[in-house]
């Protein structure tokens, strides 16, 4: 498996009629997660989120690929 960088968001059982909707659903949830938090709290929440997602993905080769791309934009 290599890193999937194509649009990949969905909600099981939900029918979408517009291509932009699933990504927007995700992005709204992401921004909502940070509402009312201080910058410091947000940084901690982001770190926890990355750890949880990384474990879910599991495949370290995929994670290394993502880390490489992420770091290029620093």
């Amino acid at each position, binding site marked *: 498996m290599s890193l*999937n*960088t*194509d*649009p*990949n968001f969905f909600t099981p059982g939900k*029918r979408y*009629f*517009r*291509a*932009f909707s699933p*990504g*927007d659903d*995700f*992005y*709204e949830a*992401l*921004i909502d997660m*940070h509402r009312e*938090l201080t*910058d410091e709290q*947000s*940084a901690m929440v*982001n770190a926890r989120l990355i750890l949880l997602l990384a474990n879910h993905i599991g495949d370290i080769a995929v994670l290394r690929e993502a880390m490489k*791309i992420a770091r290029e*934009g620093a």
Partner: protein
Amino acid sequence: MLSTYQYPKFEYRRPPELAEGRAASEGRYPVVVVGAGPVGLAAAIDLAIHGVPVVLLDNDDTVSIGSRGVCYAKRALEIMDRLGCAEEMVRKGVSWNVGRTFFREQEVFNFNLCPEPDHHRPGMINLQQYYLEEYLVRRAQSLPNIDLRWKNNVIAVTDHGECVALRVETADGAYSIDTEWLVVADGARSPIRHMMGLDIEGKIFMDRFLIADVVMKADYPTERWFWFDPPFHPNQSVLLHRQADNVWRIDFQLGWNVDPEEEKKPENVIPRIKAMLGDDREFELEWVSVYTFQCRRMHEFRHGRLLFTGDAAHQVSPFGARGANSGIQDTDNLVWKLKLVLDGKAPAALLDTYSEERVAAADENLMNSTRSTDFITPKSATSRTFRNAVLGLAKDYPFARALVNSGRLSVPSFLVESRLNTPDSEVFAGHMVPGAPMDDAPIESAGGEQWLLQVAGNRFQLLYGMPDAGDVDAATATACAELAAGAIPVETLVVAERGQAPAGLRTLVDVKGRIRERYDLKPGTCYLIRPDQHVAARWRSFDLAKLRAALARATCNA
């Protein structure tokens, strides 16, 4: 400032209620519409087309001042086709489908609003609102049953239960009229909403935007260009759009802590535009305005005999052009229902479904425009970091492109939760589910080459798929004749590859097979279509009893 447009002045006439020798009360009107903006005019024209005499009251005597609403989406144009105004709009307006998004100096994303071929209308046109209103007024004036009253200001409204009483002020004094139904289209500040003490709930966004309409000759492509954090306007967004008459709309995000009166002064506006266009480009200012916006809606759009439409009922941020476009869709949804209720063919409960369906649509518009606003104007450092990360990834990674949100442009709602729909009991591919707004397709009929959405609408219709129209059997043809003769008539359109349907039935030749493809049409497939071009029900075979039950359900007669 320069003016490319001559504002018409419509003539006030003494209303019949104030004519000499007339009784004080002239009896009761079936429908009064208040507000001759795009939404009120669309409502009045639609009612007149349905044969309902209508009084349209407006407190002014000209069209909208300034270009205001600029983008009219495909669905609004399809509705305007039904009302007889789209051709002029498209001829005068600037058609476009492609939008480009820039982050700092680089293009990171582009979209095409209408990637499929074989649709009549473009994804969007840009047209100054005053032109749209001028065309609608002209159309309204050509219809015999619209009584258009300029400089008639509604000062009091009382819902008596069996009718609504209005007090109207004019230069010749005040008068009273009664109406069975009142369509309220008096705009975002809605005086009538205030008079009735009705709430509209939501939030104001703490940001200001500067609109500059400039006249210039430029050979930029006819596309929507949107910048995040451009070098000529750092840390803010900018939008560039072409309108008719070489007028260009430029929209600068300013932030909250600016003085709108100062920002509007030409000596402050012109340097911003020069920074964007370069010093050499010649242009003249036509209109400048600083705006804020609110995202809010009324809890319900029907209050007794009052039906709220457009900005009076709901307001969204401008990102996505979901204001006027959704208001026009309100009237599209409302008018056929009002006609059936006025004719005694449906209970008043049908008008509750106007509120239900359009509240759902308003919520979708509010959700999408709020999401765009949150992306364009991040509210926290973390939110801005995520936004810039998405923009940074977008150039190379498709998933991030899909997250770039510079406005999700107006598209019609799929009314999938509506109680007027009959749920599917068979399997269909594609998107034409019960509640869907119809997809267009090219056809040939007795009228020559046409489009499906030019023959659909204004009445209930049955799309009946049959490869050779001549194969429609006698029993089905008889049943279709019964449907056409019903209290609420249903017109059958046989969608065929070839042949001629039996006498009394219209044949549409699906010349490019797009109806078959888009509706997953197989031999015998039936679609029951509402007068507003939405799917009410569908089956794989013709069944008169099921059709009648679905028709009853779609009109609250079940």
